[in-house]
């Protein structure tokens, strides 16, 4: 088979070889007057780092040189077979167009191109494991005798295949989010410290916690750590003062938990409602729905009485809505609100939450109908036992 010139009409005899190119390379490859094709990188091959560019030229008229371009820039000229070079692509996930131009002795040329699209990261997210942390109670007690076969997961009404099942052994990552505003001064902040201390001391190896103490400002934040002593030290160094910005620092806490894996929880202790945040509670709800962290809210001394008030930032109706949205975020996350009347009950509240976390079932599944369309997926977990109550997150945003 001899080389063919472009413009003389592509005769049927152009040959099976050329047809082979078209078939192999699809839309990314052009026909060549001098027979040429790009063998590597192949169609769909991710291109990062050192990349071999291998060009094949057809039999027939001798080729004197092959020029290789990436995104229009000449990266090498090859004068003899094998027409292969190394190209340093770097680690940027971008589209790259590879072009090879083969020149014959007679001055004719053939061109082949291959477009490598960026890797679709979202494809990986399709495989995101949804983990459900499920609290099951029978009367006032938690039901601890259930097995995998007792649970059935529904995602948007469709039964899902459970791929992981566990009990309380999964390590815990917690943010202790402590309201340290002026109203917490005195005994309250002392009791809060005592309660948080009880929680930290109950942590097991591999559990980690971060401490966030806030008022209308961020007063203290630590990284996640297993070091209980360091966390306890951080807690004692902060006094209570200022206003309250629950939304801002709850958002921040959820954000801190976002890259973590496994069982994630925010334990919010606050005696009042938000006054001074810039982030609306609707954003916190959205963050809750797009993440997998649970929120437990220890509401000290009738926080519900405090929410109906006006400030320069929101009127009473708007504050009521913020409060309701916080409640919604807590409940949708699979957590709960624990109301306590006296600061002296705080230690018990922290302990009971830790105990509950230890006694949760952990169910994992890969949703079979994700579209990344930002829509809400209802999640329901049924337990095939009578007389039990089941609590887990209400769903998630397909994001």
């Amino acid at each position, binding site marked *: 088979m001899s080389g063919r010139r472009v413009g003389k009409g592509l005769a049927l005899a152009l040959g099976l070889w050329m047809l082979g190119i078209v078939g192999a390379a699809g839309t990314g490859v052009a026909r060549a007057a001098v027979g040429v094709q790009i063998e590597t990188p192949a169609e769909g091959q991710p291109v990062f780092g050192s990349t071999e560019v291998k060009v094949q030229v057809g039999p027939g008229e001798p080729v004197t040189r092959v020029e290789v371009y990436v995104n229009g820039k000449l990266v090498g000229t090859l004068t003899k077979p094998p027409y292969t070079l190394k190209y340093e692509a770097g680690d940027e996930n971008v589209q790259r167009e590879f072009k090879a131009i083969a020149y014959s002795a007679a001055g004719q040329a053939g061109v082949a191109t291959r477009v490598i699209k960026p890797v679709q990261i979202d494809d990986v997210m399709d495989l995101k494991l949804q983990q459900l942390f499920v609290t099951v109670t029978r009367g006032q007690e938690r039901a601890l005798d259930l097995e995998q076969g007792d649970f059935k997961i529904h995602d948007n009404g469709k039964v899902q295949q459970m791929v992981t099942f566990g009990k309380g052994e999964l390590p815990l990552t917690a943010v202790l989010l402590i309201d340290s505003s002026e109203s917490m001064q005195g005994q309250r902040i002392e009791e809060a410290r005592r309660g948080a201390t009880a929680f930290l001391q109950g942590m097991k190896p591999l559990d980690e916690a971060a401490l966030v103490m806030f008022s*209308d*400002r*961020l*007063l*203290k*934040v*630590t*990284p996640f750590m297993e070091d209980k002593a360091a966390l306890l030290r951080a807690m004692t160094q*902060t*006094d209570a*003062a*200022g*206003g309250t*910005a629950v939304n*801002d*620092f709850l*958002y*921040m806490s959820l*954000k*801190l938990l*976002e*890259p973590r894996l496994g069982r994630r929880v925010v334990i919010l202790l606050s005696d009042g409602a938000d*006054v*001074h*945040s*810039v*982030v609306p509670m609707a*954003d916190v709800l959205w*963050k809750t729905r797009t993440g997998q962290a649970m929120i437990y809210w220890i509401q000290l001394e009738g926080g519900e009485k405090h929410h109906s008030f*006006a*400030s*320069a*930032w929101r*009127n009473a109706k708007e504050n009521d809505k913020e409060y309701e949205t916080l409640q919604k975020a807590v409940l949708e996350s699979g957590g709960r609100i624990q109301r306590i009347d006296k600061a002296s009950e705080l230690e018990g509240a922290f302990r009971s939450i830790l105990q509950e976390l230890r006694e949760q079932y952990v169910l994992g599944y890969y949703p079979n109908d994700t579209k990344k369309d930002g829509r809400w997926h209802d999640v329901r977990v049924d337990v095939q036992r009578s007389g039990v109550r089941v609590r887990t997150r209400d769903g998630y945003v397909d994001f």
Partner: protein
Amino acid sequence: MRRTRSPARYAAAAALVLLCGAGTARAQDPNDPFATSGVTVTDTTGQAGRRQSNDEVQGRYRKILAAWAGGQTEKAAADLMALETSVVRDSDAGSRKKLLKAEEAVIHEIGGANIETLVPVAMLHHEVYRRYLTMGAKGRSLLLVHSRGMTRDLAILYKQQSGSEGAALVSSRILTSLGGLLQQYAQQLPAAEMFYQALELDPRNSAARIALSIVYEKNSQYQSAVDVLRKVLAADPDHAEAKLRLALNLKRLDKAGEAQKILTELAAARPGDWVTSLAIQELARLYSEKGQAANAQKALEAAIARFPDDARLYVQLAAVLDHKGEMRAAQALMEKVLALPPSPTSTTASSRLLYNTTRQETFEEARHFLDENAHSRLPLLAEALNVPNHAAIAVRVGS
């Protein structure tokens, strides 16, 4: 908001007492229950003690004023509190009336000698009112009503009887300062009454106007707040706090265009104080609400460059980036938050907290003015009481 009482009414009531010859003349009236029954004295635990005659109360009050005139600030304030507490009980509404009559009798006497003496006497009652507030209202409701009423009525009476422009300025500032105390203790509507009256006496009193706008804003009366703030800016076009408050009230009235213009100007032109920081936060929020995430991002990035230690700016920017789908960039901001220096607990307040409170700095000018005016009149008070005036002598010697 409607006014329910006018300064003229207060003045008329107070002037009536002054002009009708209360005090010793009334003590001889057989129909005066004050003169016949005396006053029941209570100890600090609220136990009823011996009865105290009108003359005795007047005598004690006169000594207290003498101590005040002599520069014994602490003793005078403490003794007046002791006297009032010994006479007035919340359970006996008539007890306040008896105290009022005794104090008015003395004021009638010294005010008749020199009307300027009313200024230091008003300031003594102002100081006592402030102290009652810090102690809390429990068991002191009538005392609070009494000391506030005395301060207010003396201020209005002084203006009415003097009639000078200077007296109007002094009286206006006494009422402004009282309103500031009320606002500090979240008594918005009584505070508004004070600010109204202050403005009637001196329409150029910008502290009273700013404070009144905050009352309107907290009561969702945004148009009224805008009207008041425009008057402040008409008198002082560079008043940054008034501009900020005007912008945020305009936004509430769906006048986002004008609000954005003002916020942009504040964000760009002002130095790095709380007004600037807040203007940027609110400008970014306005952009976000309008769906202009890129502008919000730009504003917040610029803000972080100016206020690199403000954790809230990072959280707000993270929320903006999350909504743009730039989760990793948002996450990187959290790493920066973890590296921020700890926030000082009690020495600073966030810009959002400052906005929600009437800053006591707003009233500083008024209080400084009052201190000077009260102090300069102490010799007159001493003269009216026929006692030496060590404070005045000290001032003369010192100066």
